């Protein structure tokens, strides 16, 4: 019965989305007030409630292990621990699509409640959001029903992929989807603004907080995925330039460009057309990502098991959204107004350059990701494009962007009054050679790109510290202070990520060997001894646990495991980590083999990852910085009692 109710709720939500699109459109025609706009708003609530209830029912079916539902049977098992039963609700295609749709509807509700101030623009963007919702809810209802019955019902279920039974992976997809899907609001507001012939500045101001929220969440989601790959996949990498990773990196790059260009447009009217174009493109890249992950067209690390028909449908949604968005843009971009002039050494110019570099990076990533598909379509032999391509082509572009990043906050807007703080500029510029020398010193003997990356990372961190020291005392209002801190924090985080990535690119030691209990290996000044292998079975798996003692620096014991999940008939590795400020010691254990002398040896992989925590903390800083900037922005947007609008404009939040 639950399945039938769930199905009904999805259909109800779909109808509510159609109603939302039509009613909010009519409402916008009437200036955003009146019964139609109100009804459109009510429709967003129905869509959220219905989709949310359907999602809860799906979770309930997982908790009850109702294997008469095909999706539950495919992604759960009676013996699975409860948190992972619940996580199974978004561990596969249909359930994650339901989550996607629900988040899409939530953003629709958000736009209706706290969307653009102008009522007509708000109602129009609710209508566009409704259109995007309608597309995905139709896909859910007609091609990806998570409540499909299976007969006869299996008794046990075929288990969630053991690799996904991990805390980071429980929250990774929801975070990622809030990011992907959140970009839809930027699309909806941009498209609505084009229909309404809104000015570029007003539009950039309306969409900036939404883009910032989405991009921050996307950053968190991607970082969680990288962290998971590092410690769960058991071979010590965190980013592989896999097509599916690229699929999330594309909207991230464009989102990063958008949150910066929207500042320049809102504050100084610079490049309004570009900002609106980016807002449209970023969400289209999100849909492209969904297509790449869910259609099975690419050989990928994370692809969902395949269904070409679904791929075609997602391609259809991609086409509808892209044609609608770009057609509107082509017809109406003129009404956004021309950008104001700016000096080449102004903050606008630097933001523009940063946007160019980020967009070029996105173009290069897109080329490498889609090239195999293009070859295939032309019936040529299909190549795979490996990490070497991306490292060589994207890294220089991103490094250039990070070199410019710390300078921009010291530059004035073109018509901002004050001349460049030249002394500050000089002091900042002095940091570059200092950082370069420090970088060389730290990574002497490392590959060139690692040295440059390390120096640039230090440069960015130093710049962010100076920015904070410079901007915080000057900021009077709480909102401005929050915004400035957020900016400095996020920029410092980017520097830390560059530094951590550079350390990782300096070819740290990696030993793959096999050991008989009692044997040793030596890595990074430490001696690891395999003492023995013991059984350590869990609730739904069998495990061999290696007992490894470490002597030398960071002595102690490490217990990596090799787990076998009978339900899924899969083996996984549980990595053991010893984290210090200097870096992580990383050990995993693999299969057993018989040596020529008859003794049993176990594969042991030992790695040392210098400064890897920089990546994790860097990501946390970027996310925290994004959240602070958002909070500051919302605060300075709120009407201040007693302050005239002109006074509020005197001290803009960054």
């Amino acid at each position, binding site marked *: 019965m639950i399945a039938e109710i769930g199905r009904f709720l999805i259909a109800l939500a779909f109808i509510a989305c159609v109603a939302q699109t039509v009613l909010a459109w009519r409402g916008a025609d009437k200036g955003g007030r009146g019964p139609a706009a109100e009804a459109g708003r009510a429709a967003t609530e129905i869509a959220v409630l219905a989709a949310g209830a359907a999602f809860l029912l799906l979770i309930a079916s997982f908790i009850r292990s109702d294997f008469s539902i095909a999706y539950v049977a495919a*992604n759960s098992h009676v013996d699975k621990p409860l948190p992972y039963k619940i996580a199974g609700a978004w*561990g596969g*295609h249909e359930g994650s699509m339901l989550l996607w749709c629900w988040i899409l509807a939530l953003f629709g509700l958000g736009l209706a409640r706290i969307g653009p101030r102008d009522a007509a623009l708000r109602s129009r963007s609710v209508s566009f959001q409704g259109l995007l919702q309608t597309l995905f809810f139709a896909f859910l209802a007609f091609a990806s029903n998570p409540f499909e019955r299976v007969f006869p019902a299996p008794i046990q279920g075929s288990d969630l992929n053991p690799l996904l039974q991990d805390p980071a992976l429980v929250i990774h997809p929801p975070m990622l989807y809030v990011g992907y899907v959140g970009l839809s609001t930027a699309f909806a507001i941009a498209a609505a603004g084009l229909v309404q012939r809104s000015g570029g500045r007003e539009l950039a101001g309306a969409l900036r907080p939404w883009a910032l929220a989405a991009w921050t969440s996307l950053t968190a989601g991607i970082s969680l995925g990288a962290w998971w790959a590092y410690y769960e996949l058991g071979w010590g990498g965190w980013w*592989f330039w896999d097509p599916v990773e690229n699929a999330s990196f594309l909207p991230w790059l464009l989102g990063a460009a958008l949150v910066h260009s929207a500042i320049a447009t809102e504050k100084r009217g610079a490049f309004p057309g570009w900002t609106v174009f980016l807002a449209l493109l970023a969400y289209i890249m999100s849909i492209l990502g969904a297509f790449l992950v869910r259609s099975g067209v690419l050989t990928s690390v994370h692809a969902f098991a395949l269904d070409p028909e679904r791929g075609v449908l997602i391609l259809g949604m991609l086409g509808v959204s892209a044609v609608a968005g770009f057609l509107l843009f082509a017809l109406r971009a003129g009404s956004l107004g021309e950008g104001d002039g700016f000096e080449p050494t102004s903050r606008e110019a630097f933001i523009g350059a940063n946007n160019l570099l980020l967009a070029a990076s996105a173009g290069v990533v897109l080329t490498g990701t889609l090239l195999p598909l293009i070859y295939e379509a032309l019936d040529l032999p*299909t*190549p*795979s494009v490996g990490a070497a391509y991306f490292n060589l*082509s994207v890294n220089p572009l991103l490094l250039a962007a990070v070199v410019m990043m710390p300078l921009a906050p010291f530059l004035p807007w073109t018509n901002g009054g004050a001349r460049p703080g030249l002394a500050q500029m000089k002091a900042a510029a002095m940091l570059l050679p200092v950082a370069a020398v420090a970088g060389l010193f730290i990574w002497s003997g490392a590959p060139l790109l690692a040295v440059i990356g390390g120096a640039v990372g230090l440069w960015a961190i130093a710049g962010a510290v100076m920015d904070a020291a410079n901007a915080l005392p000057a900021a009077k209002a709480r909102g401005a202070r929050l915004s400035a801190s957020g900016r400095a924090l996020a920029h410092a985080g980017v520097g830390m990520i560059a530094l951590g990535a550079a350390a990782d690119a300096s070819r740290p030691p990696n030993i*793959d060997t096999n050991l008989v209990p009692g044997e040793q290996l030596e890595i990074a000044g430490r001696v690891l001894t395999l003492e023995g292998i013991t059984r350590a079975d869990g609730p739904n798996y069998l495990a061999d646990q290696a007992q490894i003692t470490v002597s030398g620096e960071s002595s102690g014991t490490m217990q990596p495991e090799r787990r076998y999940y009978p339900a899924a008939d899969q083996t996984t590795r549980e990595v053991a980590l010893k984290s210090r400020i200097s870096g992580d010691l990383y050990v995993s254990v693999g299969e057993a083999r018989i040596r020529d002398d008859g003794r049993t040896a176990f594969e042991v992989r030992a790695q040392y990852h210098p400064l890897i925590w920089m990546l994790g903390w860097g990501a946390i800083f970027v996310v925290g910085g994004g959240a602070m900037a958002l909070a500051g922005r919302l605060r300075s947007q709120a009407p201040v009692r007693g302050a005239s609008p002109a006074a509020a404009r005197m001290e803009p939040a960054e």
Partner: protein
Amino acid sequence: MRKAQRRLWIVGAAGLVLVAAGALAMTAMRDAMVFFYSPAMVAENPPEPGVRVRVGGLVVDGSVERPGSGGANFTVTDGAGEVRVVYAGSLPDLFREGQGIVAEGAFERDGVFTASTVLAKHDENYMPPEVAEALRASGHWQHGEGEAGGYGGEAGYDTPPGSR
């Protein structure tokens, strides 16, 4: 600054970045593109020794040997040809006889394929698209194989080091 002058700046900067990005991408692509060969293609027209390629197929039952010193050797087939793969690294956790895998590396002069990376998907229903295509081409595709269910989780190739 005058409007025309400013336009010049913007167009110049954009052009510069685009040219740089294009040049970077082209140079990088030349080294990084790796083509897929099915065992049948290898039998017909083997790639030059030393050229990096990908080879994929089903792991032949009983063909896997694990030397005491480490690594693993095995044979992949698409029904129309066979390739012997020598691999010094640690096999992915879900490597199995009868399963579809993709190996990246280069052929030696004696026709043995030395792999630096072996990819196996963590989902027994999953078949790398190239392998599925190769099996179809050689007529060894069984209907439903690798497409079972149309469900399955987000999953991972278990990729050993050396692939980056």
